[in-house]
């Protein structure tokens, strides 16, 4: 019988290594949220693997008392794919930054999403290169002044969600770096989801890009500026829970309950499980309100499942059980001694 999974607390996933992020960095929040999520998931500690690339965010595995690899810049999705294909029993997590995943690792990022291997990717989006001390990244905004764009950035940014959905992501969630409770819950859902799940955390870098998300995430505006979506629930937001989304032609619009005859019933209900990503794309693109929560969670066959099924099929039909069967099959001939 399988031994029951031990009752863990978040402390079981922390280790004795000194955490070296800048004080006040959202990376601490993400670390703690992951450590809190894991005990809830019910996975054994020895079965958990964190693979990261390079960046401030990618130091993450060093601080987890699980298996882990701090690898090379941008390649974590490919390494993690190998881990998972080698041993599908493992709970495999990818830790990556906006530069790591969408600049140098862009190719691996889109392909891992396309393949739908059962991995969890946490994307620390701080819209800057933290570790190399403040150059613009593929998510930095046009006009943003950084160390490598002193007169303002001229390269238009990616929206990670849009890119991910375009690459056929089956699971995409977005959450502010200062919402630990929701974040923990999203990590739990992401791990439970069968397939590649991508969680974008809007992570404040206090040193090189401080406040870049405040207009959405600051406690004073959060409820008015963010729409936290939940599957099956109407898309309502606002301090007074009186605003919501309606469809006007091919566009999403904000409507106020009680105005123009709008009632709760007129609001769109969030369907994260819909196969067609059109609505998810619209939600991802919306700037007001900024949509957070699990935007897409579409159940689909995973790569491992397809591979397993094929292997079983081939095994059943094949007469080759051992390498010798292959080596001594077909066109062989004997040479006799004199």
């Amino acid at each position, binding site marked *: 019988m399988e031994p029951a999974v031990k009752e863990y607390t978040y402390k079981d996933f922390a280790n004795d290594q000194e955490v070296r992020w800048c004080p006040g960095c959202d990376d601490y929040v993400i670390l703690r949220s992951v450590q809190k999520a894991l005990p809830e998931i019910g996975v054994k500690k*020895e079965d958990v693997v964190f693979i990261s690339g390079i960046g401030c965010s990618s130091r993450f595995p060093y601080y987890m008392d*699980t298996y*882990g690899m701090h690898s090379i810049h941008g*390649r974590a999705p490919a390494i993690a794919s190998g*881990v998972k294909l*080698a041993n599908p029993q*493992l709970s495999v997590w990818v830790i990556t930054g906006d530069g790591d995943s969408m600049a140098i690792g862009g190719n*691996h990022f889109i392909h891992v999403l396309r393949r739908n291997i059962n991995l969890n990717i946490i994307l620390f989006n701080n819209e800057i290169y933290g570790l190399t001390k403040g150059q613009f990244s593929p998510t930095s905004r046009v006009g943003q002044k950084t160390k490598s764009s002193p007169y303002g950035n001229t390269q238009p940014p990616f929206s990670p969600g849009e890119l991910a959905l375009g690459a056929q992501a089956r699971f995409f969630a977005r959450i502010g770096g200062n919402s630990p409770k929701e974040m923990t819950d999203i990590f739990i859902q992401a791990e439970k989801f069968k397939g590649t799940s991508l969680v974008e955390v809007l992570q404040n870098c206090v040193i090189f890009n401080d406040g870049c998300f405040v207009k959405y995430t600051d406690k004073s505006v959060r409820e008015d500026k963010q729409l936290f979506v939940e599957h099956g629930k109407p898309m309502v937001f606002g301090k007074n829970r009186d605003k919501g989304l309606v469809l006007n032609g091919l566009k999403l619009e904000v409507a106020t309950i009680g105005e123009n005859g709008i009632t709760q019933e007129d609001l769109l209900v969030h369907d994260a499980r819909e196969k067609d990503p059109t609505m998810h794309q619209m939600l991802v693109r919306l700037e007001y309100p900024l949509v957070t929560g699990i935007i897409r969670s579409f159940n689909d066959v995973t790569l491992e499942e397809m591979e397993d099924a094929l292997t079983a099929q081939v095994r059943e039909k094949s007469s080759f059980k*051992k390498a010798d069967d292959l080596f001594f099959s077909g066109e062989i*001939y004997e040479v006799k001694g004199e």
Partner: protein
Amino acid sequence: MVTEKIINNKRKLPPEVLKTVVIRFVGDSGDGMQLTGTQFSDTSAMFGNDVATFPNYPSEIRAPQGSLYGVSGFQVHIGSVEVSTPGDNVDLLVAMNPAGLKTNLYAVKPGHTIIVDNDSFNKKNLEKAQYATNPLEDDSLENYRVIEVDMTTLTKEALKGIEGLDNKIISRSKNMFALGMVYWMYGRSKDHTIDFFNKKFKSKPHIIEANTKVLNAGYYFAETLELIPNAYSISPAKMAPGTYRIIMGNTATAWGFLAAAEKSGLELFLGSYPITPATDILHELVKHKHFGVKAFQAEDEIAGISSAIGASFAGDLAITTTSGPGLALKGEALGLAMMIELPLVVVNVQRGGPSTGLPTKTEQSDLFQAMYGRNGESPVIVIAASTPANCFDYAYQASKLALEHMTPVILLTDGYIANGSAPWKIKSIASLPEIKNHIIKEAKENWHPYERDEDTLARNWAIPGTPGLEHRVGGLEKDRNTGNVSHVPENHEIMTWTRAEKIKRVQNNIPNLATSFANQGDLLVIGWGGTFGSLYSAVKQLSEEGYKNIGLAHFNYINPLPKNTGEILSKFKKIIVCELNNGQFVNILRMNFSGIEFLPFNKIQGLPFANDELIEKFKLLAQ
């Protein structure tokens, strides 16, 4: 139908006995030359000859019919004596069209035989082959013995009355007419090929019938009309008794990994991205899901090696396969594998470089890249296979060394041995050496992942899923006593030495260098990797001619070098290092053995060494 000169030259003599013969079949891509050549070499191998073959495909996938660059060829070298290369010049050229004749005539030994399909020498094909006049009609082939046969017409005649054949099938089977003729000329049985038809076209009896008829027609045509001046006999070679098969280098490489996985009890993981000439290893391994092989075609070479690193971390026997430019892309990840000390095999099937270079040609110019193509002090094991069949052994050995020393291993092969084929005395799994590993299942107190085996310095291998051994690895330098990240200057120096010493100690686990023909004397011929066949046949020939003062030392282990290398070098007056590059191994030897003079002998034409050029050079130096 048949030229007069030949009809009048009827054979009355018994077959002439030959030791070896080189035959080249050439024609249009669609003429089935690869199949024809393979059938001839398989049949000869089963008869007991030693054989070596080499294909020559056009680089265009669908080159225009009849064009010069659409010519496909297959060369077969068979012998009653040991045969170690596909041969340079040919004794018999079978040319199915003018383009084939034009592009291959250079290789025919003067006075030797050319068989042509006369029907294909029409105006259209002659123009495509850029012949101003028909070479069969002018005297440009004076120096050869030309046998003109109306193969297309004769094939059509042979197939009269078989239902369900269209023109395409008819014209496609004329290669079997040529094969039938060659079978008769060399006294070979048709049985193997007829068996082959029966298996291959099981569900298409009319195709079996058609091919068999044409094969027979060619055979009896050659016999009855006695149009061929000589028949030849090549007796079986003296080969070690056992069960054999003809194997291509790339297949042998793939099978070596299958064997290593089974022997080590690990699952095999391949992460790869297609590139000529390495792709056939991927093609082979994807077939073997029945052995649980996980073959992953990644989005690029970086993902290929990265996925393999992940699989190795998770406890698989992990490999990645590529060719020159692909190895360049893998460099950074290879450095990571070296740094985190995981077992990994990287196969580089070398091709002509630099950049895209000569993708379909052979070269040995990636040796420096394999040795040094990474940032930092980053030593890995480098070994090289030297024949199509021993690709099996070195793939096996690469896996064994990776697992026993916890390090990446680069296995170098090249286009020449990867695409060439030769008899392989099949090795059963039971006959192969044991493969140990460093997997640990339980933690002792204060355990850390960089604890080392005292003898080999290999670190232990704790695999995810093992309780109590949770740990982190990474590309950052780590403390030698705890495995944690460390920037301490002395520690870095000691770790650098340790990683170097670990590779050095592999010397204790590899065989000594051997010499053949002479173990001391005037000239030592040195080679490494895929040039073995060429060097071996040249030195052997000289030894038979009486040059007992020339020895051959061929290297399969390059980093580290075999322990006794210096000792062997010291026994010869002159040393020549032969390589298909601009001088790489020679410089590695110079670095390791200062004070010894090494003469370089290099060829950088995308071609293997030719026998003549080696003989001439060696003779000169051995005087």
